[in-house]
C-alpha cells in the first residue's frame, strides 16, 4: 500500500511548472447596452473581462492547485476586491478607464505552500501598436486583448503537489498558434481571451528563443571586443610605465 503523500516532504532537485495566462479582453459597449438602465454609470464606454486561465482554456487543469483568485479593481468600483472561488476565474465589468488590477492567486492550502502569487495587470481598453485598426474598419466589434503568459513554478514541490499535478499532463501547450480552434470555439462568453491566431504555442516559444539567441550572439561578441580592448590597454599601460621608468 502506498503511503499518503505528505504535505511537508519535498521532492529535491525537481521543479514543476504550471502554465497560466492572465490579462483582459475588452470591447466597446453597443448602443443598446449603453442605453440600458442596468449600466451602473452612463459614462462607461467599454465592457471588459479580467481573467486567469489555462493556456488551453481548459481551466479544470488549474483546479488541482489554485483555490481562488482575487482581483483588486480600482477603488471606485463597488466591492473592489473581487474574490472568485470557482471556475472561471474572471471578473466582467464595464468602465471607461484603464488601471492596474492586482491579481492574487491563492494556492490550495493542502499543498503546503504558504506563499500567494501576486500579479499586476494593467487593464487595456484601447488598441495600440499592431492592434490599431486602419480607419474605415468597424471598431465597434473589435475585441481588444491584453494577455500575458506566465508559469507558476513549484520548486522542490511537496509530495501532495507532485501527486496532484502528475495526474493529468498540465503543461501542454499547442504546437502551432492556431492549433486548437476547438478551444476558442467552445469558449463560453462573448469575448474569448485567445485570438485564433495569437495563441501561446511552442512555435511562439521557438520564435522567442530564436530572437534571444540572436541577441545573445550580438551581446557576447560585444563582450569579447570590450575584453580585448581592456587587455590591450592594460598592456599599453604596463609598457608605458616600463618606458617611463627607464
Amino acid at each position, binding site marked *: 500500500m502506498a503511503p499518503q503523500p505528505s504535505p511537508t516532504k519535498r521532492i529535491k532537485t525537481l521543479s514543476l511548472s504550471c502554465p497560466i495566462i492572465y490579462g483582459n479582453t475588452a470591447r466597446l459597449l453597443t448602443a443598446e447596452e449603453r442605453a440600458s438602465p442596468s449600466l451602473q454609470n452612463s459614462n462607461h464606454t467599454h465592457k471588459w473581462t479580467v481573467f486567469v486561465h489555462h493556456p488551453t482554456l481548459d481551466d479544470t487543469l488549474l483546479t488541482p492547485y489554485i483555490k481562488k483568485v482575487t482581483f483588486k479593481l480600482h477603488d471606485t468600483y463597488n466591492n473592489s476586491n473581487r474574490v472568485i472561488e470557482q471556475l472561471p476565474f474572471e471578473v466582467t465589468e464595464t468602465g471607461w478607464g484603464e488601471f492596474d488590477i492586482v491579481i492574487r492567486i491563492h494556492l490550495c492550502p493542502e499543498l503546503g505552500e504558504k506563499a500567494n502569487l501576486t500579479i499586476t495587470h494593467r487593464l487595456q481598453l484601447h488598441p495600440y501598436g499592431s492592434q490599431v485598426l486602419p480607419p474605415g474598419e468597424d471598431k465597434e466589434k473589435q475585441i481588444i486583448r491584453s494577455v500575458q503568459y506566465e508559469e507558476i513554478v513549484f520548486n*522542490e514541490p511537496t509530495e501532495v503537489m507532485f501527486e496532484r499535478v502528475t495526474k493529468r499532463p498540465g503543461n501542454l501547450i499547442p504546437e502551432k498558434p492556431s492549433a486548437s480552434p476547438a478551444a476558442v470555439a467552445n469558449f463560453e462568453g462573448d469575448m474569448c481571451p485567445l485570438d485564433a491566431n495569437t495563441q501561446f504555442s511552442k512555435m511562439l516559444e521557438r520564435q522567442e528563443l530564436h530572437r534571444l539567441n540572436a541577441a545573445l550572439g550580438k551581446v557576447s561578441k560585444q563582450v569579447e571586443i570590450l575584453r580585448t580592448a581592456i587587455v590591450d590597454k592594460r598592456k599599453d599601460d604596463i609598457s608605458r610605465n616600463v618606458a617611463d621608468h627607464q
Partner: protein
Amino acid sequence: MSSSDILDVLNIQSGSKSDEPSAKRQKLNSVSGSSTTTTTTSTTTTTGATDSSDFKGTGISRELYQLLGQNTPPILLKQQSKFKDKALDKVTPWHWAKFQNKSRKDGLNLRHWNKGSDALNTAAYKFEKYNTKGYDVPSFTKEDYEEFLAENDKEEEETGETEETEAAWGYEETQYLFHLVQVYDLNWIEEETGETEAAWGYEETQYLFHLVQVYDLNWIVLYDRYKYQGRRLEDLKERFYTVCQRILIHRNEKSSTNANSNLITNLNYNKAKELERKEYLERLLARTPAEIAEEESLLIEAKKYEIAAKKTIAERAQLLQLLDSPVSSSASIEQYLTSQGLTQLYNTLMTTKSKRKQTDNVPENPLTALNERLKLTPQQVQSQQSQQQAATQAASSVPHAHAQRKVNPLSTLLSKNLTKKEEQQYGIQIHTEKLPQGVYLRSSKIPQFKTSIQAKINTSLAELGVGVKPTMPTAIVMSRYEELVKNLGLVLELKRQVDKLESGR
C-alpha cells in the same frame, strides 16, 4: 464702523435717510416671508408705506425692533409654523382590543392596546407564532418496551461486559466499590466510578420521556428537576436519544418503510465524546492565571520563531541570489600567472574535487538516475536490467530489507517510465542547482539591477528587438533571457572599465 461706511467703501450710492428703514424692512420681510435661506443685500427702494407696524411679521417685539437700528442682524428669523402644522394632523386611533392567546387552553380573554381602528383588529395574536408547538416525542407502551427496548438493553449489557473483560474486577476493587455505595447511598454521579451504570428500567424511561415533554427538551432544566435517580446529564440524553432511535427503527420494521432515515442517523449520541468535551471545557475554565500567562507567552514565542524563520529564509534567498550573479572574471588567466595565484587556484580546485567526491556518495535522485538511464543505449539498458534483476533477487532473499522499502509517489511515477516528452507534458524539470524551495512566478526571477543600470539594459534590450519582459516565460526562454540580461550587465560593466582606463591615461 457703520453700514454707511461700508457702503462708502464699496462705492454704493445709499438712498436718502428716510429710505433706509424701508430698505431694512424689505430685507426682513423677504427673510421672514420665505423660509428659504436667502441672504439678499439688495438695497432696492420700496414703494410701500413706511409705517413701523410692519414689524409684526418678524416675530420680534416692537421695542426690540426699534433698537435694531441700521444694522440688521445677519440671523435669519424663521416663522415657527412647522411644529403647529404637525400638531394639527389627525391623531392615530388606539384601541383597547380583546384577544386570546392560543397557547392557553382556558380560553381566557385578555386585552391590549392596538393601533388602528377596531375593525382591523381581527388578526391573530401577533406573538402567537412564537408559541412552542412541542416536539413530536415518540411514545411507547409497556408492551413495546418489553418487546424491543428491554431486549436491546440486555444485548448492550452483554456486549458491554464482553468489552470490559480486560479490566477484571479484583476483590479489593469490588470491596471498595461496595464501600462507596454504602457511603454515597447509590448516588452514582458523586461516586464517579463510572464503570457500571445503573440500568434503566421501564418506569425511569417513561419518567424521562414525561419530563422531556414537560420541559420541552430544555436539558439543563430537565436535569435540575430529575428526581428519579442520580444520573449525569449525558446519561439522560443518551437514554432519550437511543430510545427514540430504537422506537423509530422499530416502527420502520413494523411498517417496512424507510421513513425518517435521516433522523435515525442524527439520533446517534456519542456520550463519551460529549463527556470529554465538557471535561475539556471545565479544564479550560479552571486554568489558573499563571497558566494562561504561560500559554500566551508561549504563543508569542512561537510567533517570534516564525518571524525569525522567515527572516533567515529571506536572508538565505538574498545570499543565494548574490552567489548567482555572473562571474565577472574580466582578467582571464592573468591573476593566476604569479606563483601566489597559482597556489590559490590549486587549493580551490582541490576543495571542489573533494566536495565532488562527497556528493558522489550521497544517494542520487531517482529521477536523475532515470534520466541517465534513458540516455543509455538499449543494449546498455538491457545489461543494466539483468544486473538489477540479480540485485533484486538477492534483496528479496533478505525479507526485512525488502519490507522496509517505502513506496512513494515518485516510485509510482517511475513505474510509468516517463520519456523526455512526457516529462515536458507534466512540466517536470530536474535541475541540479540549489534553488529556494517554494512557489514563485517564472517571470519574477528576472535578474534585477540598480535602477540606473536597469534603464540602460532596457534600452539595449529594445535595440536588440527583445521585450523588457519575455512574452513566453517558459523555463528555457527564461534561462536564455537571464543569460542575455546578465551579459548586458557585463557589457555595461566592461564599458565602464574601458572608460576608466581611458580617463586614467
